[in-house]
């Protein structure tokens, strides 16, 4: 199987790794680069658990070719926290917005994409922004509340 070199930045750090022919970005990040934060859910683009940001836009890493991020900036949930947790992570904890936690990395990245673009979203805009992410535990309300907490400044880093 042919291997292709891919150079990109992952959470601000320069990375270079080999992608297999036809390998998706999710598998590349997890097996090739060792970032286990994006999750494999459906592998069909239906659940959003694999959501990462590519050049600031949310994408389904299971449906993106690894080689397509050549030269791009990739952000994952593992890059959210610095010296302290990201405000979204704090808010998710405060609001009990994670139960099993499997959807959480994808939810966080979908929420980050929204707030980076629109720091003061309405509730409807929050719902729309996470409409590509499935959570089978929380019923969504705690997640929506957590994102709104960050947007209204109730939770700060």
């Amino acid at each position, binding site marked *: 199987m042919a291997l292709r070199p891919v150079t990109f930045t992952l959470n601000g750090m320069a990375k270079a790794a080999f992608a297999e*022919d*036809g390998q998706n970005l999710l598998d590349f990040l997890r097996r090739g680069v060792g970032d286990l934060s994006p999750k494999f859910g459906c592998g069909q683009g239906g659940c*959003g658990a694999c959501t990462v940001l590519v050049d600031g836009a*949310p994408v389904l890493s*299971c449906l993106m*070719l690894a080689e397509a991020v050549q030269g791009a900036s990739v952000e994952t949930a593992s890059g959210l926290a610095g010296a302290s947790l990201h405000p979204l992570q704090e808010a998710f904890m405060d609001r009990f917005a994670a139960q099993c936690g499997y959807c959480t990395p994808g939810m966080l990245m*979908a929420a980050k994409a929204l707030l980076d673009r629109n720091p003061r979203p309405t509730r409807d805009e929050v719902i*729309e922004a996470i*409409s*590509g992410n499935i959570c089978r535990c929380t019923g969504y309300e705690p997640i929506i509340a957590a994102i709104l907490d960050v947007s209204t400044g109730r939770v700060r880093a």
Partner: protein
Amino acid sequence: MAVTVETHTTLAEAARALALGGVYMGGGTGVMHGINEGTLQGRVIRATDPALRAIRATGEGVSLGAGVTMAQVLATPDLAFLHPAARAVGGPQVRVMGTVGGNLFAPHPYGDFAAALLALGARAVMAAGSHRALEDLLRDRDRPGLVAALEVPRPRELRAFGFAKVQRVKPRGVSVLSIAAHLPREGGRLRGVRVAYGAMAPAPIRAASVERVLEGATLDAATIARAVAVAAEGITPPTDPVATGWYRAQVVGVHLRRLLERMV
């Protein structure tokens, strides 16, 4: 057999490669899961030609590169008439990835955006330079060649174009059906009517019986009632986990009525 991905920097190269066999990958939302599941083997062709992402105004419409994404459409105020159809596609992530060209080849029950393009009378510009009417392309999707761009006529006025998607799950669900209607008016009468359905056939189709009723008529309650009466005429919708064909045929008239009443 394994998957071999070929990335070409120009459309012409990609078209030549595709002519030798293989599958074209646009945004990946339609092709990548086949690779993931191992059901797609062999050559996968893709292109990074910037022309694929170009949006430009033409004489009476707009040209969309086949690689223009739904998110790009939504970020372009000049394409406001296409926003309801682009917003109907997937969630935010799918809209960032999914392309207008790819939507033409989305399997049932997907392809809501293609239904809108069909109602507007869009034409496909092939990589070789020829043009194909969308209804021809949608009838024969197996070996279409490489679509380079879509030429989309602009509705003469915003209210002349309507789009509705019917889904069971809010805010984001798969189509029970979608309806797109282009109803230009001349002297109070409808002229050049085009109505298209998504998810009512294996690929988006025109609602010929509805168009015959509307053409030349005034859009009033009586006309709408006559159009609704033939909404499912000549159509045998597919059955899938979202809805049975019987259900689709039963409710299409209800949703056609609602859309047409909005457009009066």
